């Protein structure tokens, strides 16, 4: 796989500048896709939790919509966007796992020797995570709608959901890559899961702010994932799409991208073969 992935750069016409950067990024991306195809277990493990939570929580909590102030009478409509964001977050963690394996096998050192700018490695890896997020998200969305989720937000609602999913995948990739570039050790991988689980579940993942109580209410109010969920839930909640709900989500997304993007870029820049 390694040889196949690297060969096109060496064999093709000599590329320079932006073209070289783009081709290098595409090679990293394609290599990640090959890994996904050759190890379908990776996709199964990433897809398991979102699909499981979608089905189990839909069966478990339908009566929560009877609590006054719950914004919909369809629990699956409430849950589906969270499930998609969860899948996107796990796809980003996959980028961290894959890079950890490349560090252990020494392949990342070879990538660092590429003549293209290092950011091509980061971009290609994020793109690979994004491919997985979309590859998992589309079937989960279809299953969710098939088993009863309403799509009430029209085109703008669905676009908001897509933006949130893509954003979550990029954010979690940057986080996982920033950590693995610094630690350079696969054994930090469980840390990704702990942080992502805690960040996702201390938001409005299960119930809206008006229903959560105590410490969770306080944390969920300031957790940017809450804004991302509100952005994405415009696709499935009865209120539909509005700019007033969209801009806080976009702002949260931009803030997370700026912080975690910098975290990943600096980590990669400091990496020495």
């Amino acid at each position, binding site marked *: 796989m390694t040889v196949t992935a690297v060969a096109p750069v060496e064999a093709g016409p000599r590329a320079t500048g932006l073209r070289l950067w783009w081709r290098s990024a595409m090679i990293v991306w394609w290599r990640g896709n090959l890994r996904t195809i050759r190890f379908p277990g990776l996709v199964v493990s990433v897809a*398991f939790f979102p699909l*499981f939570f979608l089905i*189990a929580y839909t*069966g*478990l*909590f*339908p*009566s*929560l919509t*009877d*609590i006054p102030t719950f914004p919909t009478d369809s629990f699956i409509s409430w849950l589906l966007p969270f499930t998609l964001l969860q899948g996107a977050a796990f796809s980003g963690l996959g980028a961290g796992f894959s890079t950890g394996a490349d560090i252990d096998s020494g392949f990342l050192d070879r990538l660092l020797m590429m003549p293209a700018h290092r950011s091509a490695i980061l971009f290609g890896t994020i793109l690979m995570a994004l491919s997985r997020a979309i590859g998992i998200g589309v079937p989960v969305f279809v299953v969710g709608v098939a088993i009863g989720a309403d799509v009430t937000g029209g085109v703008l609602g669905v676009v908001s959901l897509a933006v949130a999913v893509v954003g979550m995948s990029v954010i979690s990739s940057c986080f996982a890559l920033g950590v693995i570039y610094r630690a350079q050790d696969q054994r930090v991988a*469980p840390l990704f899961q*702990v942080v992502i*689980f*805690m960040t996702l*579940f*201390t938001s409005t*993942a*299960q*119930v809206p702010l008006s*229903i*959560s*109580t*105590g*410490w*969770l*209410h306080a944390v969920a109010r300031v957790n940017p994932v809450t804004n991302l969920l509100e952005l994405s839930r415009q696709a499935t909640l009865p209120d539909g799409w509005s700019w007033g709900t969209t801009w806080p989500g976009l702002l949260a997304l931009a803030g997370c991208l700026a912080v975690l993007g910098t975290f990943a870029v600096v980590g990669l820049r400091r990496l020495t073969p």
Partner: protein
Amino acid sequence: MTATVIDELRRGGWWTSSRALAGRSIRGVLRQPQAFVPGLVFPLFFTAVNAAALDRARMLDGFPEVDSYLSFLLPATLIQGIMFSATTAGNDVALDIQNGFFDRLVSSPVSRLSLLLGRLAGIAIYGFGLAVVFTALLVAFGASVQAGVAGVVVLAVTSSLVAIAIGAFSMAIGFRKGSVEEVQGYFPIFFTLVFLSSAFFPPELTGGWFETIAGLNPVSWMVNGLRTLVIRGWEWQGALLALGTGAGLAAFLVGVAALGLRARLRQ
């Protein structure tokens, strides 16, 4: 540690060897924080989140009368904690097979029974201790056990039985496959069993397919028995339901593990 254990095994019968292997199992867990920390952190985290997120669900018609959602979740927290930790028994078996220690044990004059019982005894003690610690923590944060000390004892003994059951199942996989990854691959089974039960919400409020599946799930029988003791007070029926289900599962799965061990010894 390994050489000391083998010396100890040479000196005694099945009791001595079981005791030595149980000690090794407990030391093995305590020396690997990555093996027991998730079993402590994740269940407590999910309990804290669910208690804060779902507390208002107590207002729903048909929800059992309970002073806090934390009390309602106590049995689920124990079972989740054990689910995360008890699979280490199977991981350790697989690891022993991979690194050759299992072959050394088999070639030493150690009782075959103790290969099974030693590790299960270790995980049972761990399950008992985990239940006591979790109960104390949840009580400190506002939960209560209406059945008092007797109720806590039943909670801890049932947890021990669950630890034996899950440990035995993971050991069966470990004996047959000899691979840590394969043992880990079966983890979603326990995850699914706990979520598709009455652990987090009363199934009678869910209706539909979930109520049917949860009603057939032995984890629900156990949780319902324990929950009776936690939220209502001492009832023999609840205690016997929890202990009986735990013992039944443990006995069945220890049998499955014994078959796995026999298959491994024949190889």
